[in-house]
């Protein structure tokens, strides 16, 4: 299976704390993306990092990519209750026209 794995599967923190989620994948990639899914809703794209990039920032989000270890991390700083959602790392692109999702990390931010 080319599916990636997020770690941890579930994470519960207090508002204001930082949340770190990790992702590992098995194949070579063109890019790696992170998506958020609120309960019962569609997926929202958060950030994309290319295979030749090592770190990227967007607002309170920081993503790192280590292609030698086939891993990525998503850091959400100063978390808010509204950040409560499932977070998926997604890799794909290239000639296969397929985005492969990991199993997701369920983040709960307690007020």
């Amino acid at each position, binding site marked *: 299976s080319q599916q990636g794995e997020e770690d941890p599967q579930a994470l519960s923190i207090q508002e204001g704390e930082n949340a770190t989620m990790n992702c590992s994948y098995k194949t070579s990639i*063109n*890019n790696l*993306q992170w*998506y958020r*899914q609120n309960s019962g*809703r*569609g*997926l*929202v*794209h958060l950030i*994309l990092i*290319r295979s030749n990039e090592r770190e990227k920032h967007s607002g309170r989000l920081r993503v790192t990519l280590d292609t030698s270890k086939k891993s990525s991390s998503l850091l959400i700083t100063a978390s808010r209750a509204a950040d409560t959602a*499932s977070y*998926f790392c*997604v890799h*794909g*692109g*290239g*000639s*296969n*026209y*397929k*985005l*492969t*999702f990991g*199993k*997701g990390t369920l983040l709960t931010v307690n007020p």
Partner: protein
Amino acid sequence: DTAVSQTPKYLVTQMGNDKSIKCEQNLGHDTMYWYKQDSKKFLKIMFSYNNKELIINETVPNRFSPKSPDKAHLNLHINSLELGDSAVYFCASSQDNWYTEAFFGQGTRLTVV
């Protein structure tokens, strides 16, 4: 305007019926996808189309037949529905396959009884 819209949002039907889910994107994207999300929240690709041509059919039973009348539409028709087809189905689109984000619809929750 909604970028990727699916209809219906909810669909409850009996085993053996045939149903369709429609998807439209107004982003001018070339690539469209159908994903299935099971009860454990695992998202798996079913089909991807590029410029109306089928690119990926990820070992989906032939009871599922996608149709792309034009680049902006990718509909999913399901014949002889089974209990195991119950899931949330997501349509998505992206500009192309290189270094671009995908935009997802809100999903269609299909319940087969």
